């Protein structure tokens, strides 16, 4: 599984990625509650190479994810509830067909200051 490496288990952070997400053993997928609705996914090279042989919904997810897509967007794309999208995305991530980019939060469970500052700059530039 490819997971953005800046996310890591934290003492009391709101967003906790279980340790097994970082292990080489790829038998487990990210548990549902650990992949929030705004989590972004991108197709890996392996995923794009394998896409033609995938089940239609899996293929649709991987091919849409050449541009970053949130779990919410995957759900909307397939017309399925977020919970269903989360299961499909977890399976694809476990096979290294998708990379998952989780939010980065501090120990208070809120986005870190640096991110808020960048968000503010981006909004002011609009």
């Amino acid at each position, binding site marked *: 599984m490819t997971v953005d490496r800046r996310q890591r288990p934290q003492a009391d952070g709101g967003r906790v990625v279980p340790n097994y997400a970082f292990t080489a053993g790829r038998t487990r997928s990210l548990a549902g509650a650990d992949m929030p609705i*705004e989590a972004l996914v991108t197709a890996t090279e392996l995923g794009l190479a394998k896409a033609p042989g995938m089940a239609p919904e899996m293929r649709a997810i991987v091919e849409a994810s050449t541009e970053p897509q949130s779990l919410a967007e995957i759900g909307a794309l397939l017309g399925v*509830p977020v919970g269903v999208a989360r299961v499909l995305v977890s399976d694809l991530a476990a096979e290294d067909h998708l990379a998952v980019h989780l*939010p980065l939060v501090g120990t208070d469970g809120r986005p870190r200051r640096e991110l808020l500052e960048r*968000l503010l700059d981006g*909004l002011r530039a609009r």
Partner: protein
Amino acid sequence: MDSVHADGRAATATDVAPGARRDLLPLKILVAGGFGVGKTTLVAALSEVPPLSTEQQMTSLSDGVDDTSVVPEKTTTTVAMDFGRVTIDDSLVLYLFGTPGQSRFWFMWDELARGAVGAVVLVDLRRIDDCFAAIDYFENRGLPFVVALNEFPGTDGVDDELVRDALAVPPGCPLVHVDARDDDSCTRALIVLVEHALARSV
């Protein structure tokens, strides 16, 4: 304690080489408020794609308010949410989620609110009762929020202090005026929210 990289170093803004694409990071802001208050309109005004809709299935104890039965029962509810997307820079993507304001859906808010930058509570001054529950919710959870008065016809010229009193807006919580149809107006509301979140962050 600050966030850390997987290898234990503290994460800092200088970790990324100039010109390199930084890691993708999602952010989210919730847009809350009563029925028909302008949530979808605000999300549409800001989003770079037409607002999408997604469904979330929830199991909850029905609270008896909408039921004829007095005995709580386990029910599965499908809740529809609109959302929009705003690309902030080469690595930050902001999602806006319009959250159903009806109180029986609030059990889903904890999951949605986790990790959020904050919330915009939209208010229609002609129907203020609809926003109390949202204000209470975010205040209790300690999530930064702003109260945004959606300027429907006939709601202008109201004194802000009277509104703050009437809505019991907590001291320090910003009150803004928006036209939910107007991109610039909605962007300003988000800026006030993020400034407020920054002022409260450690």
